């Protein structure tokens, strides 16, 4: 079994004319790689009618609906994170309740609000109540603000995680740009933060650093926007970890933090 904890899909209101091809490409590549479950999110309208990282409530709802439709079309392969913008607390809480009831299995927080902001607490309370993980978009060592997002640093995520010790948090895309070494130092002693290995970065030494900092029991395999890099990291890990350790990274850690029955054979 192989769970991709960081996938994305597109929909007809996204700016990309090739959205169908990209969705199909992800599923086809997933078949080649052997992905059992794509745990995915859709970030609103992907920038078309509100910013990718600051999606409006209607765009959030449309994106979540599109993902629910994909989940219904591919019940064997697609699982969903409900994406919310925590600046709209009532809408966020309602979306979480609605989408988890409809079968989604996690919560996606992109970059609408810093991870240590109190506005995230109501979201995390629902994550705890429903036993679902929170996937938090992270800029690995944010040295300044970046346009288009209120990106969180891992230190802010760890602050949130310490406030909600019963919730599992997924540190998004350790290979997604930025200083991953800074992030790995920060997560070392925060047991409810899991490291998602996705991202376009395939730096030599990064995976060894992840194993050393978080241990194999807190690593989650994923792809994000580039599946070739995800496959490369999987192949490399197979040469340095034993079979039992690989099973943790491939799927067993995911089974532990997502709701019971989230995946076909768990």
């Amino acid at each position, binding site marked *: 079994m192989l769970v991709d904890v960081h996938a994305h899909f597109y929909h007809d209101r996204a700016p990309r004319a090739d959205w169908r091809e990209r969705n199909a490409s992800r599923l086809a590549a997933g078949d*080649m790689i052997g992905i059992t479950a794509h745990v995915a999110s859709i970030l609103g309208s992907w920038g078309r009618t509100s910013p990718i990282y600051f999606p409006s409530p209607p765009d959030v709802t449309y994106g979540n609906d599109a993902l629910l439709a994909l989940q219904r079309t591919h019940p064997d392969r697609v699982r969903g994170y409900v994406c919310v913008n925590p600046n709209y607390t009532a809408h966020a809480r309602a979306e979480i309740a609605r989408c988890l009831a409809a079968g989604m299995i996690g919560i996606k927080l992109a970059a609408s609000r810093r991870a240590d902001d109190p506005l995230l607490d109501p979201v995390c309370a629902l994550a705890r109540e429903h036993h679902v993980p929170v996937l938090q978009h992270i800029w690995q060592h944010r040295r300044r603000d970046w346009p288009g997002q209120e990106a969180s640093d891992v230190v802010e995520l760890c602050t949130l995680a310490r406030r909600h010790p019963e919730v599992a948090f997924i540190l998004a895309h350790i290979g997604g740009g930025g200083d991953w070494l800074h992030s790995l130092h920060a997560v070392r002693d925060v047991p409810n933060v899991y490291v998602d290995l996705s991202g376009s970065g395939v730096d030599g030494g990064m995976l060894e650093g992840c194993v050393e900092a978080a241990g194999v029991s807190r690593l989650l395999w994923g792809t994000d926007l580039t599946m*070739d890099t995800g496959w490369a990291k999987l*192949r490399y890990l197979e040469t340095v970890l034993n079979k039992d350790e690989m099973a943790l990274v491939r799927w067993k850690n995911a089974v532990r933090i997502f709701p019971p029955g989230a995946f076909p054979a768990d």
Partner: protein
Amino acid sequence: MRVDVNAFLGAYPWRKVPGTSPEALLKALDRVEVDEAWVTHLPSLFWRDPTEGNQWLVETARRETRLKPVPVIHPGLAQWEQVLADAANAGAPAVRCDPLYLGLDATGDEMRVLAAACGAAKVPLMLAVRLEDGRQRHPNDAVPELPAAAVRALLRSDADVRLLVTHADRAFIEEVHFGSTPAEASRIWWDICWIWGPPEDHLATLLETVGMDRFVFGTGQPLRLPENSVAKLDLLDLPADRRAAIESTNVKQGLLA
């Protein structure tokens, strides 16, 4: 046969990188089934005289025949012509000059003269667009990325120069390719290490629009996992002859012809 045209030996100054020795690189080649790797001495890219690493590189490659040396040339230093001649005599498949790492103007006179000399010597000139993702670089690592305009200028500066450009993404490649005449574009080869694969169609599109014959297999190892370039090709599911073109034929029958 699989040839990695983009590999390094030696330590990187900005972070700890495992597997930088010749022995470790050879193990990595075995792991990803690479038959031959073109290697540059990585530390010397950062030295005031980068050619001081060339002798060690050539001697190492002489011992390990799967490694082919790609010596560094600094066209701002006296006697650089001899470095080029030595490289050719040592059987180097290419030489490299990353002007911005050397503090040179990427389109300046030194680079133009070097391009012409490489063209006359029939030795390909290798340049990297970048070595690391710009978002993660050390705060003091302020070397700019190679601009596409510089590559176009070098291509135009000499009718015989052949360029091998590594670590370029789709936008960079398209800008240079479609900003060049067909004759100019026929003298440049691109390694695939920085081009995105599925679910994006960057590599698949470039193979169709820019042409299968323009791409070669490169990894950037050990700074990057070499498994990545293999995975890109596996996901494309190419016919055997087209895959072989990228993995070796374009090097042997194109770049080195």
